[in-house]
């Protein structure tokens, strides 16, 4: 059972109760920010908690991300679905999310025990946002190597996502970035909306991220 808030009619979790359908989360962000690497970290962490999941990818030009996940050994390849974006990474997650909705529904029909469908956007820019017709919750991934000025450039992706991820913290000293200052600025810009730092190479920050997702959409925390 869920209740509805006035925040674009998004479901609000009721403690101790699970949603009737698989939750859907979006993961967006610029090209090369580490969206696929993040999913590769999230899959085993969520599976350890008994979460049944599937993934929809929106590769721009190839099926690189879908094939990478299928070959990873982390997830049954049949649980990974690729949706081509027709040269429109924005469109397929926002203006016309119907192909992604249908792909997620097909996965749910094929695997009725799913708890979660992760929808990975193609690499995009800071104006990228997910339609709430498509997802219940979405993450936007940036990384320190893109420059410490990315948060203050704002953009709808930075400002409106449910959870902002600053990835590749391990690279900060090598690219002359003060990671703590970058995180502090991101938090200052986003107000009460959360920001998490992570390092997908080492797994730093992944547990906190899974806790956050569990509270927000899986209702298991």
């Amino acid at each position, binding site marked *: 059972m869920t209740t509805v808030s006035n925040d674009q009619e998004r479901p609000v979790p009721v403690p101790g109760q699970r949603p009737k359908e698989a939750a859907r989360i979006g993961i967006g962000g610029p090209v090369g920010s580490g969206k696929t690497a993040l999913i590769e970290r999230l899959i085993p962490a969520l599976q350890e908690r008994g979460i049944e999941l599937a993934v929809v990818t929106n590769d721009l030009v190839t099926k690189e991300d879908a094939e990478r996940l299928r070959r990873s050994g982390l997830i049954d390849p049949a649980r990974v679905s690729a949706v*081509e*974006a*027709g*040269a429109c990474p924005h469109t397929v997650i926002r203006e*016309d999310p119907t*192909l992604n*909705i249908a792909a997620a529904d*097909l996965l749910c*029909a094929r695997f009725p025990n799913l708890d979660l469908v992760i929808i990975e956007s193609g690499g995009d820019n800071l104006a990228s946002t997910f339609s709430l017709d498509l997802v219940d919750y979405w993450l936007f991934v940036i990384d320190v190597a893109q420059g410490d000025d990315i948060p203050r450039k704002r953009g709808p992706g930075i400002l409106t996502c449910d959870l902002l991820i600053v990835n590749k913290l391990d690279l900060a000293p090598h690219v002359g970035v003060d990671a703590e200052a970058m995180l502090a600025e991101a938090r200052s810009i986003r107000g009460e909306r959360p920001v998490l730092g992570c390092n997908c190479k080492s797994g730093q920050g992944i547990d906190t991220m899974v806790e956050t997702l569990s509270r927000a959409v899986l209702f298991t925390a």
Partner: protein
Amino acid sequence: MHEAEIASLLSVCQLADSAFPSGGFAFSQGLETLLAEGKLSGEAALEGYLAHQLADRWLPFDRYFLTHSHGQADDSGALFTLDADCEAMSLVASLREGSRRNGLALLTSHEKIGTEGAAAYRRAALQGSARGHLPVVQGFLYRRRGLALLPSLVAAAHAFLAGQVAVAVRLGTLGTLAGQRILSNLQPGLSAALAEPLPETAPWSFAPMSEIAAMRHETQSLKLFTN
């Protein structure tokens, strides 16, 4: 003008609008391969290609299925048989799969906006008891939105042509204004064809250039569109 006519025009504007979520933006119907391989280049060549697509594919094939679907929108058994016929007559795998995916995406939108019957048809498509091919779904949904046959055909034909032009524009091979010139130039021929009754022949198509391109598209590693 009667209020019903105005309502019909408004419905056509809504349903044929590229802003209406239909999933159609992700399908090139073989055009991406033809442009990438240089088989088509320039405004005149693209206009000729689309005139051929209209005359030898959309009008004798899609129009047939849309027309019959529109007429049988209240008979799910007949609709699903028509859907199966459309499947059987779609030789090229990427075009066949694309038509089903596009139809399912359109059903998704109509279910969400409350078009009567869309949810049941979509459920059947998800479960595999219906195929959900685009022209069959269009005829069914447009009828359920209250559109008569002719405006339904106009909406679907325009969406097809505008979608093809958008593919060329997004691939950087055609200017957006050149695309509008092409659409304007194709309108008289389309109007004349739709003014004539549907021929009493079985559905057919003869578009080997685009079909072979769509087959080649299936094996290409670099592509932006589904087919």
